[in-house]
């Protein structure tokens, strides 16, 4: 079955340098730096990445960071809590706009 997303393409991520090597190199160097152990642990960063992957709904990133969090010792409960954080922020970001809706509603109401 042909789909827009092919799991095999994830392995080809590095190939983006084929069309523009300089920017790709800069990106991958930066990417590598970002995920290094720092003020946040590599594990905390991996959980953030997993949550963001859900928020941006990228199947490649979801696959990659599910494996990565598992390999950083996270269990089912921890990864699901991370996803709920993303969901809460996404949901909250949507709901907070309802203040604008309410303002407008009230503005136009008698």
């Amino acid at each position, binding site marked *: 079955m042909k789909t827009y997303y092919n799991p095999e393409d994830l392995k080809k991520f590095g190939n983006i340098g084929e069309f523009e090597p300089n920017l790709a190199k800069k990106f991958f160097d930066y990417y590598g730096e970002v995920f290094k152990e720092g003020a946040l*642990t*590599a*594990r905390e960063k991996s959980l953030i990445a997993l949550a963001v992957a859900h928020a941006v709904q990228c199947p490649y990133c979801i696959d990659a960071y599910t494996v990565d969090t*598992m*390999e*950083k*010792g996270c*269990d*089912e*409960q921890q990864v699901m809590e991370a996803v709920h954080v993303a969901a809460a922020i996404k949901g909250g970001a949507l709901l907070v706009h309802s203040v604008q809706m309410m303002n407008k509603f009230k503005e136009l109401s008698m």
Partner: protein
Amino acid sequence: MKSLKVQQHPLSPAQRQIETLEQSAFTPFAEKLDLIGLLPLKPTHLDIFQINMGKMCNQVCKHCHVDAGPDRKEIMTRDMMELCLIAIRKTSVTTIDLTGGAPEMNPDFRWFVEELSALGKKIIVRCNLTIIVANPKYNDLPDFFKKHQIEVVSSLPYFTAIKTDSQRGEGVFEKSIKALKMLNEVGYGIEGSNLIINLVYNPAGAFLPAAQHALELEFKLKLWKQYGIVFNSLFAITNIPVNRFLNYLITSNNYEGYMEKLVNAFNPGAAAGVMCRNTISVSWDGYLYDCDFNQMLELNVSTPLSRHLSDFNTEILENRNIVVNEHCYGCTAGAGSSCGGTTV
């Protein structure tokens, strides 16, 4: 759950497992070693004498590379243990490592430990924890271990019941916690006691282990906060594609992906530090192997002159070529893996 052997599972014969491993499309492990100048793989020196006392076990863990279980009857006889003692006296090994199955189930286990104890070497027992509470006759094992200053190494794949039980069987976590408390009570893991209990983490699935130091911190925190349990070190071990773990990989459709992961994570530093370079592994029936995994794959030591305890010869063994195959990628991935955890 029955062992693969008793099920007469098609993957049970060692030859079948080797064929499966060798059919894969990736670069052969030996070639990889050759590229970094490590072929033939040679021992550095013989330091650890590891004895697999048999395949009998009270558990039937899903990932078991021994294919152990209550239905396995192959265990070491006292005669064979006598031969072990003779062989050990011919060496200058510092450590005797007792494994299984559950070595404590062997009726001559205590006799053997007492004899080994007299040799003045460090003795490790790979205790699955639940055996301590499996039957009243084993309840005094913590005291017995303490008496002989045994270093206890025990598997606990996670600090939650759900993950531990999914790999090691229903109720294993609760029993393991109980056994750990009994070990703590006699002094194991307590600062200043000199009684060592190390835990082993291995992934509950087809993925690589996390960084050992990070896991150790988390295990220490969680086990202390929730159960008041202390331990010394945590060893993070990679699952090796042998016996039931190999079967799990194949039946769950994870085999190719897992092997690819191991091959891609090949680390030359870890290859130089593989445990077979300072270990000899003895089977319940006295044959000699480069490691417990080779033992399960029936890959005997390459030298025909010292294949069994009855013709044990340290010099010949220290000059042998170590037998490698595709499962070896499990020892060389990432930070490396051995019976003592990561190697780099």
